[in-house]
């Protein structure tokens, strides 16, 4: 080989970056910018994020979205179809259904968020221990997860409610426990995937200590799929929480929890469709939005 080839700067292959190369920075600001552009280019995702933001705003400041009273009704206005004055119509006591949905957001979302938190914390802790320590710890946790999976999650939740009694916090714990197994599984798989990856071995071979490997490589790189699962589980938890509230295990009436709202319309199916359909559609919209966001998160994870 000749001198020219040896002293030639690496520009030859530098000038031909791989197909994966993108002209973006890896630093924080660039990442945020890229994230924003990513959302803007996808109308479906944009709508999903907007729905979640709107519902979150309902939960934080319901008064800003409706002046109507969610609890006290005007009996003269009972069972009115949706109109300009009552967007979602009124119920059998003359209460504005839209106002009840808006005010119910905080109850439902708080319960849901707590449920996700319970599942996330317990599940990922178990998954992390199993994936990182392996050996008998992995075996024991694996068996426990098997057992949790063998009981349909709604029945597991119902068993917990039987024992704990009714109420939003108890519903949240029950739903959260129902999702522990899923979080544990995903976290374990991710930790295993990352900690057997070549770059983790490379870090270990270059002398990095285990705690540093865990903190610097394993946790950051396994967080993506878990984050996607958080969004997905949020949708699932909205479904589970409203199902339990539909069955009457949540906050007792007249509190406008979403599942209970739908349940309350059951007696008027023949005459007042809006009582079940419109609150039901709100639940569907939130779940769809959460699933869409989850898919987007998963996809960004795959691209990385």
């Amino acid at each position, binding site marked *: 080989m000749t001198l020219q080839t040896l002293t030639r700067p690496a520009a030859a292959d530098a000038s031909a970056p791989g197909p994966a190369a993108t002209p973006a920075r890896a630093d924080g600001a660039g990442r945020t910018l890229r994230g924003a552009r990513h959302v803007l280019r996808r109308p479906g995702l944009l709508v999903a994020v907007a729905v979640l933001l709107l519902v979150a705003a309902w939960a934080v400041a319901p008064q800003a979205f409706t002046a109507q009273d969610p609890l006290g009704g005007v009996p003269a206005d009972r069972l009115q179809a949706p109109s300009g004055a009552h967007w979602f119509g009124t119920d059998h006591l003359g209460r504005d259904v839209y106002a009840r949905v808006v005010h119910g957001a905080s109850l439902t979302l708080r319960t849901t968020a707590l449920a996700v938190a319970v599942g996330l914390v317990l599940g990922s802790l178990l998954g992390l221990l199993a994936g990182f320590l392996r050996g008998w710890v992995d075996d024991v946790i694996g068996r426990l997860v098997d*057992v949790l999976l063998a009981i349909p999650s709604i029945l597991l939740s*119902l068993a917990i409610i039987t024992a704990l009694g009714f109420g939003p916090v108890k519903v949240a714990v029950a739903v959260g426990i129902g999702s522990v197994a899923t979080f544990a*599984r995903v976290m374990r798989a991710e930790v295993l995937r990352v900690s057997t990856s070549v770059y983790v071995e490379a870090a270990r071979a270059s002398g990095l200590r285990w705690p540093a490997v865990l903190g610097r490589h394993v946790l950051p790189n396994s967080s993506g799929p878990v984050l996607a699962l958080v969004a997905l589980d949020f*949708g*699932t938890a909205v479904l589970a929480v409203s199902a339990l509230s*539909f069955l009457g295990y949540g906050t007792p009436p007249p509190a406008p929890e979403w599942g209970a709202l739908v349940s309350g*319309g059951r007696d008027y199916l*023949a005459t007042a469709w809006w009582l079940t359909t419109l609150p039901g559609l709100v639940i*569907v919209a939130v779940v769809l939005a959460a699933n869409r966001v989850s898919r987007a998160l998963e996809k960004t994870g795959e691209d990385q």
Partner: protein
Amino acid sequence: MTRYVLRRAGQGLFVLWAAFTVAFFVLYLLPSDPAALVASGGGEVSQVDPAQLAALRAEYGLDRPILVQYGDALLGVLTGDFGDSYVSGAPATTLVAQALPETLKLTGAALAVAVAGGTAVAVASVFPRARFLRQALAVLPPLGVALPTFFVGLVLLQWFSFRVPVFPAIGNEGAISLVLPTITLAVPAGAQLAQVLSRSLRGTLGEPYVETAWAKGASRTRVHLAHALRNAAIPAFTVLGVMVGGLLGGAVVTETVFSRVGLGRLTVQSVNQQDAPVVLAIVAFSALVFVVVTLVVDLVYPLLDPRIELRTPRGASRRAAPQRATAVNA
């Protein structure tokens, strides 16, 4: 082969035992007092006479140490005795057995509809040449999993029992009463299956062996059905255990919406009355169903996938587990 079946059956028994144990401790260790509930007869708990309460505790054996209660319960289970209902006094197993046939009809029908419908939607979302058609059909599974079961049931009732009175709104009378509940229960299960299957189909359609099939001159139908679907069905098949469990859980809401008699209604009643023995029997029964379905899936698996041999050592029982995540994640 025999050894494998025996070992898998042993693992299944372990899962059953552990599920029972978890449910038992959840139900009996957590802070609630069934005796107080029973004595109050649905009234205010605080008004119950303490002496009466103590007598009730003694009657149900609730005054004994928890481990003694557990051992006793476990011995009972081995003879098929889950204890008596606090409310009706009837054996829990009898109550479950009475409610079971109606629920089996419902979940069986829903399983058939879900498998047929889910497979059809999944194939239809990859097969057509027209891109817009594929995209339109691909929307269905994510939509299906986002629909609350109670919402689907109520909307169906509204349209097909009240507006257009084709089907009865409530009850267990005849096959016609089964139609709407079956659809209600099949929607989430079918959508879940369709999600797993269509994702798996899209994956297999990108596999090099599918290109080999194209290169042979195979027709579109042959490539999709004989090559892609055959392979894509394998991961979808393993969701079956979770799906059947999900159907049992979904029956709780569905039977409530359609006021049907069955295991789901029994569950709701028992939870309302904090009737622990009956809830425990129901949970144990659903775990049994899951274990049996998973065992069957595992035994049938090698027929579908020649790469799997029936001697998978450690962690074989965990094979059922990964599917849950795929199912939910899909």
